[in-house]
């Protein structure tokens, strides 16, 4: 690749013999991948997008691998039609990619250096894999230099950094407990550069393509959320657009793998689906251009691969809370049955009433009835009165006795 002005995407495609039809198909897929949130895809038709993309210079992309499984690269290449993968590689100028290039060893090192020098300040750095930080980053070295040093060096001259996959975004698999290498995402080691995280294991390659083309054609990056994820792909949770959502709302859940509900395609929530907390566009942007080829589509609960706090932190069978509960597919009756006395409550009320009644009866036995009390009182009065009547008489007798003695 000669230095200076790069050729436009349009001329390159023409030279490579790519048909206009397949280019338009790719552009329509970008529109589908990013229907909102990108100024590039705000156009009405694929032809309009194609016109803009065709005029743009091919963006230079340097792709670095760290602690990864190369799954993100594979998802870029494993499109359902081989055409598409080639097309993507024709649209972007992938100037350095360890998996795809023939060179190795010192030759590869030289290729990286020249790619950086030729496009200094203009290239997009795509990072795949997490960066080990423990023990001065000795757990991964490239050309005798720790990974952390390499990524800092290459990112230093980049226009923007795209972290592809969960590993590069926040640590991914290598950062799972006990995280022996101290693996972290790119945004933990790089500062001062725009960083776009595309978490996912793997993420949809169209998200990468849309971000890169937005930068190449419009010269700017898409709107990001607080985790530096582009809003066009990560603004909603899987649950919101899930094809099985109707079953969730109707309360039809698969209870076990292979049971009747599972075979009928019912909701996988109770099997541990993390869709309600996982921000990703898997439900609407198909992998490999095929509908249904994603976990929930094949009957496997979502594991929440894009979410740092979910995928390696929660058990796969654990259910997640529903943050934004919405109405179900059922209705309350006109006259609700709420407030009916339950058996337990009824028994309790009965027990209390019985105890109070029993106590009252026992207490009543210790007192006289009012009639008895009245009779006793009257009898006492009469006795007292008779005593008084009798007293003066006895006194008189005593006096007479005194007189007798006198």
């Amino acid at each position, binding site marked *: 690749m000669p230095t200076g002005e790069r050729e436009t995407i349009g001329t390159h495609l023409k030279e490579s013999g790519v048909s206009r039809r397949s280019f338009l198909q790719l552009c329509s897929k970008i529109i589908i991948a990013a229907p909102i949130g990108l100024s590039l895809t705000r156009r009405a038709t694929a032809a309009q997008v194609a016109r803009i993309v065709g005029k743009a210079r091919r963006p230079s992309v340097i792709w670095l691998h760290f602690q990864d499984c190369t799954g993100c690269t594979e998802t870029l290449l494993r499109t359902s039609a081989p055409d598409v993968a080639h097309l993507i590689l024709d649209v972007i100028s992938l100037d350095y990619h360890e998996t795809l290039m023939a060179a190795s060893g010192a030759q590869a090192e030289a290729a990286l250096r020249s790619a950086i020098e030729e496009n200094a300040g203009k290239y997009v750095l795509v990072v795949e894999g997490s960066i080990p930080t423990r023990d001065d980053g000795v757990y991964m070295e490239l050309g005798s230099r720790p990974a952390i040093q390499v990524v800092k060096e290459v990112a230093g001259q980049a226009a923007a950094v795209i972290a592809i996959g969960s590993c590069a975004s926040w640590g991914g698999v290598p950062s799972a407990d006990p995280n022996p290498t101290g693996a972290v995402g790119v945004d933990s080691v790089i500062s001062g550069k725009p960083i776009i995280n595309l978490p996912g294991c793997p993420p949809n390659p169209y998200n990468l393509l849309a971000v890169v083309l937005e930068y190449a054609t419009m010269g700017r990056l898409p709107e990001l959320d607080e985790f530096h994820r582009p809003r066009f792909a990560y603004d909603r949770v899987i649950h919101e657009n899930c094809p099985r959502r109707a079953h969730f*709302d109707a309360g039809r859940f698969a209870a076990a793998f292979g049971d009747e509900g599972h075979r009928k395609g019912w909701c996988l929530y109770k099997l541990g689906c993390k869709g309600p907390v996982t921000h990703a566009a898997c439900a609407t942007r198909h992998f490999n251009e095929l509908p249904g080829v994603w976990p929930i589509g094949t009957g496997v609960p979502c594991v929440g691969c894009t979410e740092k706090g979910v995928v390696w932190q929660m058990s796969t069978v654990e259910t997640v809370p529903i943050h934004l*509960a*919405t*109405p*179900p597919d059922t*209705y*309350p009756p*006109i006259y609700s049955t*709420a407030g009916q006395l339950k058996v337990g409550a009824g028994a309790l009320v009965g027990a209390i009433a019985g105890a109070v009644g029993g106590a009252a009866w026992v207490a009543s036995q210790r007192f006289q009835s009012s009639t008895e009390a009245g009779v006793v009182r009257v009898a006492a009065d009469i006795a007292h*009165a008779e005593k008084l009547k009798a007293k003066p008489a006895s006194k008189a007798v005593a006096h007479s006795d005194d007189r007798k003695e006198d």
Partner: protein
Amino acid sequence: MAITRRQLFTGIAKAGVPAAVAVTVGTDALLAGEPIPVPSAAVGLLYDASICIGCKACVAACAEANDTPPDTRGDELHQAPNDLNDLTRNVIKLYKPEDGSAFSFVKRQCMHCLDPACAAGCPFQALHKDPESGVVSWTAEKCIGCRYCTITCPYHIPRFQWMGFNPRVTKCELCSHRLEKGLKPGCTSVCPTGAVIFGPRSVLLLDAKQRIKNNPGRYYQNRVYGEIDNGGTQALYLSKVPFEKLGLPELGPESVPARTLRWQRRFYQYFALPALLYAGLVQVIRKSLKGHEQEAHEREKETGLRAQL
């Protein structure tokens, strides 16, 4: 001549009774049958059950507009209130008869009555009807938690927060906070079919009558529930199925507070009933006193002691 205590109290009672009769019977408040005024800028809702599709967008929007968490106490997964409750000001219910005849959804929220029974029952005016917009709302500062409003309302709309140390009364307040900002109530802003619409009551009433006129035989009794029911309400209903089936009772044109007042006035008319009651009480006391005196006298005779009264 010195006046004894007994004479003083008797005198006061004798003078007081005619005075009370004169004051009470002569008060204007006893003149029955004044018409219920419609607030000057009465707003309201028109809900047409025949075009509601039961999507419950209004239920979710209501909770969002009022900043209440969704009621997930049913299954922990869905916002599935069983009825109106302390978290639910608006609910969609389903009337589905067993015999397979016509079913209908119904949206239940406060009717914003022209003469609200909840406000009439509230001893501290915590429930209050706005004199301009006619919105019936609840004020936390005035509420004593007596729950009279939840009992007096013929539609069973205000709901008490049973679980809570500082409980609230929850009811639809027609999103007054949104109306102030020039927004529509939450429910009407999201309804996809226009089954519930917001507007001035007079306009909604005309709209409803126009619908009845344009679709003869479509609506139950060809009438708008709330035009005169319970003295008139600011939430108006149209339905294909009988209103009672949707939980809207036939209350007649007289409002619940007016009916209670009518009976209360009858009790006090010409002060006849209280006077009769007073006379009866006097008779009972006299008789009972006489009996006691007799008994005391006999006891005295028998024992030779003065009875201690």
